[in-house]
């Protein structure tokens, strides 16, 4: 784990999560798109991406969702279970960007903890997400 793991239990509204910076090179963006079987040219072909109005290839939404999962379980550990993820994309993630995740607890209801998570690059928020997680059944005992 690259960052300190927090216990999901005992979280309260307003708690902030440690940040995680993820450098994104061209290979990362292509590898993540292909790992999800997404062959849309905008995720691997710079010339085609230009024709479609963007300056370079950009990260796919499924990859963004994957990195978001990774951030949340990097923070809260492997017992974390996802109930709901709602994410909205802002500025694209291009090769050479570093996306830095940060987050805070926005709601605690029974075993459920809801987080607001933002992944930013140098141009602004790439992703803004609301994530509801529960500890494992075992951890909840």
């Amino acid at each position, binding site marked *: 784990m690259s960052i300190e793991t927090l216990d999901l239990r005992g979280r309260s509204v307003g708690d902030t999560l440690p940040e995680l910076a993820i450098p994104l090179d061209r290979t990362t963006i292509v590898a993540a798109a292909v790992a999800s079987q997404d062959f849309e040219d905008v995720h691997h072909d710079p010339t085609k991406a230009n024709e479609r109005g963007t300056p370079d290839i950009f990260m796919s939404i499924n990859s963004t*969702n994957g990195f978001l999962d990774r951030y949340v*379980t990097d923070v809260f550990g492997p017992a974390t279970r996802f*109930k709901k*993820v709602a994410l909205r994309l802002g500025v694209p993630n291009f090769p050479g960007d570093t996306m830095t995740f940060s987050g805070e607890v926005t709601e605690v209801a029974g075993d459920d903890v809801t987080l607001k998570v933002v992944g930013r690059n140098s141009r602004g928020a790439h992703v803004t997400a609301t994530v509801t997680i529960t500890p*494992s059944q075992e951890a909840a005992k």
Partner: protein
Amino acid sequence: MKELEAQFEQFVGQVAEPPRVARYAVNEAMIRNWVEAHDDLNPVYVDADAARETGRSGVICPPAMVSTWVMQGYRRWRAVQRQQADGVVEDHAYFRLLALLAEHGFTSVVATSQEQEYVRELQPGDHVTCHFTIESISPVKRTGLGLGCFITLNKRYVDQHGDLLVDERFVMLRFDPSTQEKVA
């Protein structure tokens, strides 16, 4: 544009395309490719003992990976690209909608938002089918990428028994890049 927008109504609520049945069961090799690409070191995706320590019965699939199982693969993707270039429209509501939009110059796509509710965690051996419905289509709007409209799809992922795994709302913008206003 009013003429185009008037045609959206016929698509709303329609089954977008036939159910997509995964080409293969959820499996550890595809999961490993995914977690390596995301540099995700969570052991529950690759180590059964570690997963059992967290109360699971074995390794689980990363939640965000659900759509991967119903992607159609490289060969089919190439075939669809060729069909579109040749103006062939498969007889499904979603293909007809995309063809209609393409006729009006809306040839490009970006995803803008996604909501997924996870009913249960996927495990190797699960066989996923996804049911797609066109939930809504926005009027034509001016966006930072050019003129376009937002299409919302509902995707219901079920297992081999028909039980719900994930309920998703997926929004994408179909746009015309030639109408982008350059920022000076």
